[in-house]
């Protein structure tokens, strides 16, 4: 299938500063593409470029197979939801939602019908006569969504639409957006700096840092096989443990040795990889370190560890131990007997381990 959105070699400068560098991204029809990255990495700028609100300094943008690189926003067949919602303050909710159609000369009867449709869909029928200033944050967010939905565009663009909502509402709206996406079957590009939002919503994630694409892939790919230390650290909560270690040959596999202050080093044998350099960073998700006896299988190895901290979190309990000079977090079951200051046998599951080069940060396996 031809992608709805295709960005090739896009570059963007503000004056002499290069904000976006050689971006290559595409979105399949019906896909949910999430742009994620830390604050200031250029997510909004990239979205604005897709919308045509910022001229680009190089490359091309195709929407629906058409080259729109030099086409104005109104002719790109897109709709956008802004971070601050950007509702027209002097217009009623109905006015806000229908303004675009009015400008485009859509028939009055059609406008009224579409307004009703969208209002029902978003459950804002009772708000249509209000001004934006008379709405709560969540209601404004819905109106902003409504303004995009009535347009029925080829591509929806969302710029952190949930970042101004409180935590509970954010989770609710996240689900609603997900449902909306599957109901509409529309193609969406969604910007967020919240990696949980990215994981739950996306069919495809683009991780950005300093205007450079770090990795593109499905949520599972990004989570399980991060391509470098930045992605490994950024995606997932609590973050992946990144532990400096020494690697050496061990038969057909590799022997990993992790130093510990005040104790013998932890030695792990990974039979499935060889040819690692001498210094590596071992990446293990907290859920890949369990209490000994609760995890079995290939590549599971145990070691006694001194527990520094215990953080019960309801369903799980996280324990922290100082390993390889890092605070390593393990995710244990809620009923664990672990106590701070005592030792506990932990099981390290190398089934999903990632190795990174400490100098370049690149993935090695």
């Amino acid at each position, binding site marked *: 299938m031809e992608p709805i959105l295709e960005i090739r070699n896009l570059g963007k400068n503000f004056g002499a500063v290069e904000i976006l560098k050689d971006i290559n991204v595409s979105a399949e029809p019906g896909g949910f593409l999430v742009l994620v990255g830390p604050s200031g990495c250029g997510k909004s700028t990239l979205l604005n470029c897709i919308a045509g609100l910022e001229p680009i300094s190089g490359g091309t943008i195709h929407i629906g197979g058409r080259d729109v690189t030099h086409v104005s926003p*109104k002719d790109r067949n897109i709709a956008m939801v802004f971070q*601050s919602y950007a*509702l027209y*303050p002097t217009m009623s909710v109905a006015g806000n939602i229908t303004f675009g159609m009015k400008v485009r000369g859509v028939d009055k009867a059609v406008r009224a019908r579409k307004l009703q449709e969208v209002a029902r869909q978003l459950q804002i029928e009772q708000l249509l006569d209000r001004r934006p200033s008379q709405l709560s944050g969540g209601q404004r967010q819905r109106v902003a969504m409504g303004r995009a939905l009535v347009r029925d565009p080829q591509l929806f663009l969302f710029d952190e639409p949930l970042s101004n909502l409180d935590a509970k509402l954010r989770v609710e709206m996240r689900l609603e957006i997900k449902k909306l996406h599957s109901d509409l079957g529309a193609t969406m590009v969604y910007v967020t700096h919240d990696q949980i939002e990215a994981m739950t919503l996306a069919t495809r994630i683009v991780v950005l840092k300093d205007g450079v694409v770090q990795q593109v892939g499905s949520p599972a790919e990004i989570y399980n096989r991060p391509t470098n230390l930045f992605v490994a650290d950024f995606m997932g909560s609590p973050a992946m443990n990144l532990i400096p270690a020494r690697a050496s040959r061990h038969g057909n596999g590799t022997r990993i040795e992790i130093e510990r202050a005040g104790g013998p080093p932890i030695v792990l044998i990974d039979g499935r990889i060889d040819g690692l350099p001498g210094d590596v960073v071992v990446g293990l998700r907290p859920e890949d370190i369990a209490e000994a006896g609760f995890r079995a299988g290939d590549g599971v190895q145990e070691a006694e560890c001194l527990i520094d901290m215990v953080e019960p979190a309801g369903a799980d309990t996280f324990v922290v131990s100082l390993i390889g000079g890092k605070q390593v977090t393990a995710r244990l079951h809620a009923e664990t007997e672990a106590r701070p200051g005592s030792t506990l046998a932990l099981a390290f599951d190398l089934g999903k381990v990632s190795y990174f080069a400490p100098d370049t940060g690149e993935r090695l396996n």
Partner: protein
Amino acid sequence: MTDPARGLPAAPRAGQAALRWLLFAILGLFALFYLMPLFVMIATSLKSLEEIRAGSLVALPARVTFEAWGTAWSSACTGIQCEGLRPYFWNSVSLSVPAVAISTLLGAVNGYVIAQWRFRGANLIFSLMLFGCFIPFQVVLLPMARTLGFMGLTGSISGLVFVHVIYGIGFTTLFFRNYYVTIPVELVKAAKVDGAGFFRIFWSVFMPLSLPILMVTVIWQFTQIWNDFLFGVSFSQAGTQPVTVALNNIVNSTTGVKEYNVDMAAAIIAALPTLFVYAVAGKYFIRGLTAGSVKG
């Protein structure tokens, strides 16, 4: 303020009350001082000439007469003509209304462009316009006279409108620009995605937001233009003079006795429109000057 829970003794409170009364008294005195001239003007304008000569300046009129007002409006002499202020008053109206309207509208568009469509050099242009606000009237008199002559507008009301529009643009642009900078740029972006163009966004999104600053600008411009004397006296001729020039001529025409009551009535008439505008729209003035960012 004092906190009753802390049970402060009564003495400081009494002291505060006394201070407050003193403050009111002083402010009242200032107000009186300010209103005095107006009082004298009104009182004098309602007296007959004999009474003015006989009585004291600050006394209330013994017998109220509107004769002086009638004279000032329709028969006082401004030089050789004796038609009162009336024709000049209408000159002022027909020059300030278009001048205020045009300069305000241009200022609004300018402010909109500079604040929301940041183009290369926008700041430079804005600085130059600001600079225009500080050029004294006297400096532009001669070049402006040449320009008006060149345009064939010498001595006409249109010429005066032109001068006031040009001179006013700096101020009106400043007002609107400062108001529009507080409006988030995403509003324009949203409207662009909705399909609206430059003027559509201006009319449908920005103008409806602008009532407070519109009021400020209209009041400011109207006051400036209506009260202007220098441009009026320099660029008009017999028949096109604004009311301020006519007032000057009435007061300065030295044929016969000095009719203080007529002078006072004429001065009040000339000042009435600006007073009226303040009375009607003054509350918007304060509101507009303090109005800031627009919340979603």
